[in-house]
């Protein structure tokens, strides 16, 4: 009731605020930016260089859902993202993973459950008593629900660039205490990609990358487009993306008129599209790619995930490019 108590409370608040702010400022320093800066991710545990490889907690990363702090080495990881699952197992965090969603079909040793990736149920996830959850998107109340239950959740959505993918892999390494593993995976990916790109003469050619059988495609500015770009290929969808969304639905006749050098089918699993069924589409017999056998069937899963297997995708494309001899 008196002024001294009020003063005390005010000063305590001020000090607390200062501490909190300081702590925040301190922790934002080593934050890795998942969007574009791959190098920043490796700097995460600034505190100790050697210990860092074993993991130094707490670790704060800049995920899609903002800064996420992991306080200790996670032992019960649930992954609701097929890409995160592949990354976790590739960097050696596999034994910390106790459950993955129904879409995570790689690697085979991943503990697949019936957890739904697209329509996640918070209670079903909590049944596994996770200490860390990975997901690629939040349909609305997933993250808030899990955080309310005290479970740290990392949203890693599809990166826009290869560097973004590397950054994500390194972030996963940092929060799970597998920095060495993640650094090795990234280094291997980088050197493999460099080797593949170096082997193949870049082709000045175009491609149509089919996402599904209603002609959704990708532009050169997307993650997938960047990979084709490494080999000199340009998407025919570039002119079609007024919204700059990156994934326009093309018109049948536009594809036939554009006559891409290559047709890449990323819908062989989802929609049972094959090189043969493409050749039978109305008007598609006129495509040079169909006539000269440059319709390439891809594995939907490999192409739609941004894990280490993206190198396999690049190799398939590179093989097709290597066989291509421009007419002129």
């Amino acid at each position, binding site marked *: 009731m008196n002024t001294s108590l009020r003063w005390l409370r005010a000063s305590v608040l001020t000090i607390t605020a200062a501490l909190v702010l300081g702590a925040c400022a301190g922790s934002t320093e080593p934050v890795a930016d998942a969007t574009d800066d791959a190098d920043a991710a490796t700097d995460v545990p600034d505190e100790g260089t050697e210990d860092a490889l074993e993991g130094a907690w707490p670790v704060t990363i800049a995920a899609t859902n903002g800064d996420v702090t992991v306080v200790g080495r996670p032992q019960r990881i649930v992954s609701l993202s097929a890409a995160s699952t592949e990354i976790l197992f590739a960097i050696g965090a596999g034994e910390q993973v106790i459950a993955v969603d129904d879409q995570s079909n790689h690697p085979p040793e991943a503990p697949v459950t019936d957890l739904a990736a*697209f329509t996640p149920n918070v209670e079903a996830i909590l049944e596994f008593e996770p200490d860390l959850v990975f997901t690629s998107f939040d349909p609305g109340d997933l993250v808030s629900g899990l955080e309310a239950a005290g479970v740290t959740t990392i949203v890693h959505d599809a990166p826009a660039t290869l560097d973004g993918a590397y950054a994500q892999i390194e972030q996963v390494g940092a929060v799970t205490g597998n920095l060495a593993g993640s650094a090795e995976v990234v280094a291997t990916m980088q050197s493999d990609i460099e080797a593949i790109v170096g082997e193949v003469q870049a082709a000045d050619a175009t491609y149509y990358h089919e996402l599904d059988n209603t002609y959704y495609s990708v532009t050169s500015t997307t993650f997938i487009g960047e990979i084709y770009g490494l080999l000199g290929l340009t998407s025919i969808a570039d002119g*079609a993306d007024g919204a700059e969304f990156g994934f326009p639905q093309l*018109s*049948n006749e536009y594809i036939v008129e554009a006559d891409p050098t290559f047709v890449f089918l990323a819908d062989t699993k989802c929609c049972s599209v094959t090189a043969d069924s493409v050749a039978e589409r109305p008007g598609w017999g006129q495509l040079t790619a169909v006539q000269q056998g440059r319709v390439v069937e891809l594995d939907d899963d490999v192409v739609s995930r941004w894990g280490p297997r993206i190198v396999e995708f690049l190799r398939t494309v590179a093989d097709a490019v290597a066989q291509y001899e421009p007419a002129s």
Partner: protein
Amino acid sequence: MAIATSETRAAGTADAARVRATRLRPLGLGLALAILVAAVLAGVLTGAASLPARGVLAELLGAVPGVSVDSGLSERQAAILWQIRLPRVVLGALVGVALSVSGAAYQGVFRNPLADPYLLGAAAGAGLGATLAIVAGLGGDPLAVPLSAFLGALGAVAITYAVGRSIGGRSSGTIILAGVAVASFFTALQTFVQQRNSDTLREVYAWILGRLGTAGWGEVALVLPYVVVTATAIVLHRRHLDVLAVGEGEARALGMRADRIRLVVIAAATLATAAAVSVSGLIGFVGIIVPHTVRLVAGASYRVVLPLSVVLGGAFLVLADLLARTVVSPAELPIGVVTSFFGAPFFMLVLRTSRRSIS
């Protein structure tokens, strides 16, 4: 001001037309046919691929037996015209005919201005059928999805009709309510199957939004017989529907078997709708907008509404698909979005201009 006067004049002529419009006048039919021809020509001449208009017209002319014209189109351009653009325009017209004539038929049979081709559960049934086929991994088969959607639509309507009849009564309200129940049940099933198989979500969604984008002559051949037979059957019942519109008592007094006529018309309209949705997915609002626009402008007699709905329904959907193909060209919009986005304001304008009761 100028607009107001022309509106008033239009309404005036429409009123005058209505007084005499128990018969289809040659002028009205001629005008509607002209609109259809113009729509088809516009549809054939525009598209994502830039085909020269002169070349397209010459190519079309050259197809007339006995005429030989050098169109100057390359082999690829000719393929785009003949194998992609033309079948799409024709299919759009057929689907438009089917949806608008069956919408008009349902409105007549049930004496309900809100009746549309999906009233008795055809859309929900077709949706379930298509989803099941897609989930079963048959999405790549050009016949499986249409067939499954077709059977789903027929199945749903058959259940609706059976339930409506068994509850009894001659009231059309019972059947409509049964349709609402069956539709929500099938929609629930469809959503359940779709959610359990979320990896095929996008393909299912694309089907639900409606599409003509992957059409070829195969789809045209699939629906053509159904559309021709059912549209003819419905138009042949135009006088009966006029009598039914007055009341079932009157129909009986004139010696008509209202039940049987209703069954035949419902069956025809359902077949037409099922054939249409099987190849195009769910395209909304066509079955409402076209018949009512005809009613408002040319008169409410089914002798006018049915033939004009056939012709203008085809024209409407060809134009809607034209917009779907060109607004964001060379990307595409779902045609179901276009029919409602452009159709709804247009229809409100017609409603406002005519200031006439629709029932």
